[in-house]
Every structure is written in structure tokens, then in C-alpha cells.
């Protein structure tokens, strides 16, 4: 951590640069903007601490809700406050509700999803497969409609569901078992992956989720397991199963010959597993090959040239014993007897689910999701121990999440993470009270759904769009690059300007009606001052009124008027208000405070959204 003096010096340097940027009429050769200039030698400045003491923290309830939901809202906060007499008591009650999502009535979200008119989301895997076969190559957008609808439905749930912790955690598991949603073969099967392989197990059991994801067509295609047969096992799935889904690269020892020798067992570590067998702690390449053999014959019915497997409907999981490698195997030093058929794979999943390496890897990721980029070893180990002990419990993951969210580290830290672009968008739409139902569209109209998805893709985190199975990264280094942060700053203000139905059509209502909400809150015109209005929107978006963000937004909104002077948010242009700007008023003397005030309010709110306070977690 930098000292207070270093923090102050750093901040002073940044304020100077900020003023500099503000005063520049930029040309590409303005030397003051050069990436390499005096004082910069090529290495990023390591002075800045990740989360300095000087940072103003929002109050605890705001912090906890920000981290455990898809975005803080004042209405969430109001409901939260009613749950008990102290924050800790409220939090325990809130967690109890959220960790039991079936008991949370979610009618508003359900209605919105119903209103979207999705047609593919409730289809079984067999039905999705049949639809895909029927479409074939004849109509791309029809073929890919299932993933397009899943993308939209997921956005709706993240914005509107009351089961917020469930949605946050579902996102985590989609990253962990990352599948590229737009794969030509797997994409049409994606609703089954989301609905049957991920969601039922979010607060459930890891072992169950592991096997469910394996057996899902989307994952089978992603990692080529569907074509893995005896004699020619495909190692792609087995490698990622070990490296990404369970043990993790942290437990990878590379190519080691004779890994089960006495010497190597000591070198790589070993432990006694649940049934008394001695297993290796670290995995080697041979384990990958052997695991591939153990899973040979695990496939999707009718996904290969040899057609349907037994009576398994096409598109559903099938185990093909005739294509299973029945010979002995050795995985993590455990001996697999021959001719065990499908039990080989089941045993493999058991092994991996109760392996302490898996517990540590997964617990570490969960802590990094909820608490910070660098969680303490103590917290990770505590979560790992619980994960490991409860490996057969049907509510294992619920328990682990609860431990993490009840930890001091979760409760007392702030600014140890930043919002990734998808979270920025969703949390903005939540806090802004958006009325937005994303739906796929195949017309020539440029819809707000299309614009939102396109801009989110440009910012680097379109849903289900990461091409590799390791999932979107989850740390500030990745998401604070100029590309992704810049495109996020571009996306957020645009949310205030987008229209229903046709995104650039002024005749349509906004997806976010800030004017209406502001007027509804400040019914008395005399109260509509810059100080009040910006204060209100800071509360809505940030749960606090931090400086310098608040003052910057106030000063921008009030212009030359006093912060306590009422502003006109109702008079609009002579075009019937279709421009939603307010009134042009650039006449001297300087009355910018009366110039396009309605539009200026939207810009001011956009500024708050582009502040570090909004992007911090």
C-alpha cells in the first residue's frame, strides 16, 4: 500500500493531467498527450495501490448489495433495511432469502420474459435438436435463435429478477464452464445448457453440475467430446476438464514420465481420497490422456455418422459402450479396473469433485468473483475446506457462497474489483429504472437490443461470446485496459439516449425515462435544483454522494446558475418535444443553465455513470 503522501502525490499528478486534458485542443502530435513523454518510461506506474485507505467507502449495506446483486438499486436497499434492526441481521436475512430463490416470488420478471415472446427457451434438448436439424443451413438467424433468445432472457433476468444473487452466481458458473454460445452446432442447443446444466446446480452440488455440463450438447461441441471414441479419444474436453473446470492450472505439473512412482508421488503430492485410495495432488499430461479414455463413448445421440445411440433421443446425452475404451486406466495414480463402461467417467467425476485441488481452485475463483482480485489465503482456504467437506451435499455451493458472503473480507473491503462491461451495463439499467425488454430481431430496424449487444461486444464482454473455454477474465488488469474501459465509457451514456423499438427514433419513448422519474420525485418545481437532482441521482446510481463526482456533475448541470437555483425540466422544443432536449438558449448573456436542460440532465447522469465510483466494486 502506498503511504498517504504517495497517494496525495499520485492524486495531484492525476488532477493535473485531468486539467491538462480539459484544456487541450487535441491534435495527434500534441506532445502533452504522448503515451511516452517525460516521466513515463514504459512501465506502468506501480505506485498506485489497489484500494487505498483514502477512498471513501459507501455504507456497508450499499457495498454488500452492490457486490451480491447485478447492481445496486435504492429499492433493493429499502427492502433490505426492513429485514432487521442491524446491518448484520439484515444481511443474514437477505442471504437466507436469496440463497433460497424458489421462495422468492418473481412475477414482474416472469411477466417481462413472457412478454418477450420467446419460442425456444422451453424446448427440451431433443426438441432443440430436431428444430436445428429441420432448419439445417437454410436460415442462419432461425438456426441460432435459441442462443439469441438465451442471451436476451439472461439480460432480462439480470436486470429485473428479484433472485439477484442467483443471477450473479449463474454468471459465475457460465464463466467457469464457458461455452461459446454462437458455435454453429452448439449454439442451437444452448437453452438446454443454461436451463438444465447450469441453473439447477447454481446453489447445489458441484459434482452434479460437472456431469451435467459434460453431458450437455453445447459443451460436447465446444470441447469435441461427442466424437471421442475408443482408439482415438479426443483429449480436448479431458484437458479442459482438468485445467479449467476442476483442478486448475495451479495443480498442473506438466509432462512427467512415470508420475505414479514413489518419488514422483512425493514430489507432486498425494492424499487419501474418500474411499481410501491414494491419489496424486497434481495432475500431469498422462492424466489428461487417461481421462480422455475414461470418457470415450460419452456422446450426444445422433451427433456422429453412426447415428442414434440406443433409445436416446437425438440431441440428448448417450453413453455408447461400443465406443468406450474398456482397458485399464490410471488417473491421478488411481487404478481403474477394465470393463467398467460408463462407471469410468462417473468415477472420474467423483474423483475430481472431491479432490482438494478442485476445492482450492474453485474456491479461489469464487473469492475473486465476490471479494477481490487478491483475496486472502485464509478466506480461500476456508471456502475450499468447506467445498471439500461438503462435496456430496446437495447444497454444497450454497454453503460455500454463504461462507464467502458472510466473511469479514467481503463485508469490509471495497474497490478491490471493478465492474466488467456486462455488469456495468446491467447495473446501469437497473439503477436507472430502465424499461427494456431485449428481444432478438431479424428486421432491418436497428433495435435497442441490437445496439446494446453490439456496443457490449465492442467493449469486450458480450454474453456467451468468449471464444475459449477459460471464460472471461475476472480481474482489474484485464478490464482496465484502454480498449475495454474506453468502450464502456462510450456505452454507458448512450443508455440514456436509446429509444424503444427503434434505437435512434426520437418519436419512441426512451428506454430510460430520467425526466419522468426526476419530475415524479421532485413534484415541487422549486426543489428541482442542480444540487437536489444530482444528489438524488447519485443516491440512485451510487448509493452515496462521493466527491469529486458529485460536484463535477452538479457544476456541469447547473452551469452558471447557483446549485440551489431551480432548473426548468419541463419546457421543451417547439417540435412538440420530440427532440427531448429542452430549449435552445445559447443567446448571450451566458444562460447555459437554460440551454437544452432536459438533454443536459441525461448527460449529467451519463457523467455519473462514467465515474470511477460507479465502476468500482
Amino acid at each position, binding site marked *: 500500500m*502506498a503511504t498517504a503522501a504517495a497517494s496525495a502525490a499520485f492524486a495531484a499528478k492525476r488532477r493535473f493531467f485531468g486539467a491538462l486534458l480539459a484544456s487541450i485542443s487535441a491534435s495527434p502530435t500534441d506532445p502533452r498527450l504522448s503515451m511516452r513523454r517525460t516521466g513515463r518510461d514504459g512501465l506502468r506506474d506501480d*505506485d498506485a495501490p489497489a*484500494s487505498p485507505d483514502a477512498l471513501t467507502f459507501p455504507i456497508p449495506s450499499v457495498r454488500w448489495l452492490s457486490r451480491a446483486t447485478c447492481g445496486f438499486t435504492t429499492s433493493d436497499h429499502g427492502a433490505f433495511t426492513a429485514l432487521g434492526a442491524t446491518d448484520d441481521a439484515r444481511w443474514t436475512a437477505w442471504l437466507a432469502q436469496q440463497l433460497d430463490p424458489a421462495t422468492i416470488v418473481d412475477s414482474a420478471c416472469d411477466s417481462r420474459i413472457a412478454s418477450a415472446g420467446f419460442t425456444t427457451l422451453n424446448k427440451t434438448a431433443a426438441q432443440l435438436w430436431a428444430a436445428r436439424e429441420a432448419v439445417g443451413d437454410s436460415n442462419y438467424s432461425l438456426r441460432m435463435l435459441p442462443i439469441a433468445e438465451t442471451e436476451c432472457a439472461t439480460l432480462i433476468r439480470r436486470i429485473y429478477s428479484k433472485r439477484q444473487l442467483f443471477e450473479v452466481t449463474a454468471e459465475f458458473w457460465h464463466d467457469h464452464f464457458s461455452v461459446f454460445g454462437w458455435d454453429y452446432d452448439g449454439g442451437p442447443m444452448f437453452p438446454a445448457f443454461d436451463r438444465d446444466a447450469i441453473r439447477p446446480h447454481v446453489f447445489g452440488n458441484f459434482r452434479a453440475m460437472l456431469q451435467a455440463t459434460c453431458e450437455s450438447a453445447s459443451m460436447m461441441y465446444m470441447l469435441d467430446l461427442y466424437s471421442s471414441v475408443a482408439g482415438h479419444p479426443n483429449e480436448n474436453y479431458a484437458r479442459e476438464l482438468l485445467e479449467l473446470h476442476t483442478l486448475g492450472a495451479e495443480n498442473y505439473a506438466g*509432462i512427467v514420465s512415470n508420475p505414479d512412482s514413489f518419488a514422483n508421488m512425493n514430489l507432486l503430492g498425494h492424499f487419501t481420497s474418500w474411499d481410501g485410495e491414494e491419489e496424486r495432488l497434481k495432475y500431469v499430461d498422462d492424466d489428461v490422456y487417461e481421462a480422455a479414455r475414461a470418457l470415450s463413448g460419452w456422446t450426444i445421440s445422433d451427433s456422429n455418422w453412426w447415428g442414434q445411440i440406443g433409445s436416446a433421443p437425438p440431441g440428448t446425452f448417450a453413453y455408447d459402450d461400443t465406443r468406450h475404451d474398456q482397458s485399464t486406466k490410471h488417473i491421478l495414480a488411481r487404478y481403474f479396473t477394465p470393463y467398467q463402461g460408463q462407471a469410468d467417467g462417473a468415477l472420474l467425476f467423483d474423483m475430481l469433485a472431491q479432490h482438494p485441488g478442485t476445492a482450492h481452485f474453485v474456491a479461489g475463483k469464487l473469492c475473486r468473483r465476490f471479494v477481490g482480485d487478491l483475496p486472502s489465503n485464509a478466506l480461500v482456504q476456508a471456502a475450499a475446506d468447506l467445498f471439500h467437506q461438503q462435496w456430496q451435499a446437495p447444497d454444497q455451493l450454497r454453503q460455500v457462497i454463504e461462507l464467502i458472503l458472510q466473511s469479514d473480507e467481503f463485508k469490509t473491503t471495497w474497490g478491490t474489483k471493478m465492474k466488467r462491461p456486462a455488469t456495468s451495463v446491467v447495473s446501469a439499467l437497473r439503477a436507472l429504472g430502465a424499461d427494456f425488454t431485449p428481444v432478438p430481431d431479424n428486421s432491418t430496424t436497428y433495435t435497442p437490443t441490437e445496439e446494446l449487444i453490439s456496443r457490449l461486444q465492442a467493449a469486450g464482454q458480450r454474453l456467451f461470446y468468449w471464444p475459449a473455454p477459460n471464460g472471461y477474465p475476472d480481474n482489474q488488469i484485464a478490464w482496465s485496459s484502454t480498449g475495454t474501459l*474506453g468502450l464502456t465509457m462510450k456505452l454507458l451514456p448512450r443508455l440514456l439516449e436509446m429509444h424503444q423499438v427503434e434505437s435512434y427514433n426520437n418519436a419512441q419513448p426512451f428506454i430510460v425515462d430520467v425526466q419522468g422519474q426526476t419530475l415524479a420525485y421532485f413534484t415541487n418545481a422549486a426543489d428541482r435544483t442542480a444540487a437536489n437532482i444530482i444528489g438524488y441521482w447519485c443516491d440512485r446510481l451510487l448509493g452515496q454522494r462521493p466527491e469529486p463526482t458529485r460536484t463535477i456533475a452538479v457544476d456541469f448541470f447547473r452551469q452558471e446558475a447557483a446549485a440551489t437555483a431551480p432548473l426548468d425540466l419541463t419546457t421543451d422544443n417547439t417540435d412538440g418535444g420530440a427532440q427531448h432536449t429542452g430549449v435552445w438558449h445559447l443567446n448571450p448573456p451566458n444562460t447555459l443553465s437554460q440551454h437544452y436542460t432536459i438533454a443536459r440532465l441525461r448527460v449529467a447522469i451519463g457523467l455519473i455513470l462514467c465515474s*470511477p465510483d460507479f465502476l468500482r466494486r
Partner: protein
Amino acid sequence: MTSIQRRDFLKGCCVSAVAAGSGSRAYAYFAPPPLLPATATNDTLVVVFLRGAMDGLSLLPPGAGSPLRTDYEAARTNTRVPVSGTGAALTLNGTTWALHPRATGLRNLYQAGHAAFVVGAGQVQPNPIVRSHFEAQSNLEFGVGGGGNGIGWMTRHLVSGGLPANVPLPAVSMGSITANSLLGSSDAITMNSGSDFRLDTFHWSWQNDDAAHGLVGGVNRMNALWGGNATLLERAGMDTLGSLALLRPIDFNPYDAANHPNGYQPSGGANYNLTYNSGFGSQLRNVAQMIKLNLGLRAVTIDLGNWDTHVGQGNPAQSYDWFGNQVSSLSDGLAAFYTDLSSNPSGNLMQRVNVLVLSEFGRRVLENADSGTDHGYGNVMIALGGAVNGGSVYGNVAGLAGSALYEGTDVAVTTDYRRVISEALIRRMGNPNIYYAFPGYSGYSPLGIFQGTDLPPANFDQIFRNGFETA
């Protein structure tokens, strides 16, 4: 205080590599150091990373006269590149290696002496070798032989490379998220698309400044938001706003008389519109534009993905040729890039632009049962540029069967990828500090791929950069 922290960091970085076992380096680290090299040039190095392990044996298969052809055909049936008939490989001057038929652009460049291939290239890490894409990519890009501390090799090159005191845009990482090779660099802007990289979404009435009316717009106001606290996030925000301001005056869209009169017009009729992987074409166009703008661009990293052909790789003798689609993106994109920069009206810019193409590892010699290939080891690298001793294949593959193969299955690595990059750094970039860019690397000697002057390889010591510093 800043200096001490960097010093300690650098010590940690280099000491760990020294501990890995290159004893002579331990003494060299503390030897009286050079100041920043006066030999530094303003060439540009563009590294194209083929993500997913490109199958070098299909890009550059053994040709008809090659002693490796028989073993190649024994191992490759459904993924085979034939030497006659439909989809026949393209012959290359002076070598029995041949080129995938859909790499016509690369072939032309090779025959003209501007492109060279290196076979049997790859990572020679301390034991163990890794077969994981992510780990192998990360190892290559951090360049410390395994592991890493969040600083890329390209970053260390830029730090030690003798850049002038003021360079508008020394480095670009094309993509949304900074590539590992440029991680930790304060010289680099990361962006996925030039034309997207601007702030223009506030309502038009309050977006930009209107000096005549004293109106300060939203874009300008954002700068002050990011100076309040000393955090990683705020620093990133400041860098981002600075980058946006730097590039704002540039129109990265293709030229269009009506909508983009200041847009970009490639020279020589270069066509960046690729049938597959169109984003790659656009990004190459952006890079060419930035080079022509004289922003001091010296280091670029750009990605082309989708090479992980475990299933259904295809072959050029049939209509399904997935791998060939990828090859066409690479070849057509690089050909457009070369044409554009070499046809530049005020002078052939390819004389000082150097492109290196590499991948994290190659693919197994024996194809698998899914008409695809699995992870392998030795691979092909490509060097492209006006200052390349092209029209040659460098390096060596002893055989494609039996004991000639690594572990009996993979093309062996006989040329360390660092050797190829180091030659570019020394002969083209004028930076001898290759042992700083690649801690733990030793024994460099040039292959002769690039034109330029040899310099004694060194390990840059930043402590002494400005003379001895007091605490």
C-alpha cells in the same frame, strides 16, 4: 520512491530468471551497464499471434521433392495438403517445403524475397513443456520461460529500447483486452477497432465543447472525474481518457467522400476486406493507418484466432477446408498490409516495418480420428518485411517419424522463438537488450532472417539508466 519500487521489481524479475539457472547472467546483471542504446531505430515490429495453435504442417507442408513427404502423407490423410491435382500446394523457390494453396499472397511475397519461414520453431522452456493453450500463450508472451509477473516481453523491449523522450504512440495492442506481451506497458493503447475508439454518445447538444459559447461538453468533463483517488482504476481511467484524446482527431473509417472524407484510403489498391475473420483485416488496416500517421509506432500485437482444429480441419482438395479459410485470412490480410505500406506515396514503408507471425505451439504430426489434429510442439514462424532476407526457409526439421519427433509424436523444436524475435530486436529495432526482454535466455546468435547490423546482446539495467540514483 517510484524508482526504488521499480528497481526492486526489476531485481525480482531478473533474479528469478537467474535462479532458473543461467549462471553467467548473474554476473552480467550487475556488470557496468550501458545507457539506453543509441542504436535504436524507429522501425515498427508487428507481431501477429495465431491463437489456438496453428497447424504449421498444413500451412507449410513438405513438397513433392521433400524427403519428409512420405512420412507426412502416412500421417495425414483427411487433413493432407496434396502436391498435385485439386488443392495442390504452391511450390516455393529454393526449398522442398511448399505452401498451402490458399496462401497465394504469402507465396508472392516469398517469391519476391520479402517473406521467410522458420520451421521447427517454438518454445524451449525449462522442464516441463506445456500443452495448454493458455499457459503456452502466456509463457511465450511473458517471455520468462514459464510463469511471469505480469510484464510482457514487448513491454520490456520498449522500456529498454532507447525510445526518444516523447513518442505519441509507441505501441498498440489490437483487441479489447491487452495482450500479455504488452501487459504492464504504459506505452501501449489497447483497442479493438480504431473507428469505435472514441467518445461520441452523449447527446449532441452537450457532448463536445463549443468555445464560442463557453460550452464545455460531457466528453471534456469526464477528465476531472478520474483524478480524485490514487487507485489502479483511476489510473486506468486517466490512461484511457488520454488515449481517447490522442486518437480522437483520426478518422479510422474507410474513406467515403460523403461520410468520411478524412477516412483512410489504402495505397496500391490494397484490399483489407477478408472473406473470413473480417475483423483481422480491419485491424491490419488500422495499424497501417497509424504507421502512416508518423505517431512513432514501434510495437504492435494483433491476434488471429480460430486455429484450434481438433475436429474437422478440412483440406484444400475438397470443398470443406476450414483450415484453408484461416490461411486465406492470414495470407490475404498480410498481403494487403504489405501492398498498402509498400505502395505508400511518400516512400516504401515496408522497408522499416517488420512482421512476425507465430503461434503458441504446433499440432501433432499424426492426425486424429476426427479429421483434425491435436496439440503438438514445433511450428512455423513467418517473417515479413522489406528488410527480411526472404525467399528462404530457415531452421530445420530432421524428420516426421520415429525418433526425429519430440516424444515420438511432435515436430521437434530446433529454433527457439526468442532467437527469431531477438534478431528482429537487434537488427531491426536496434535494441541489443534481448536478455532483458527475455530473462533467462542466453546464447543468442542471428539466423540471418533480417537485414541490419548485429549488436552484442545485453541485459539492460534500468537502475543505472539515469546514472546512479540516490534513495
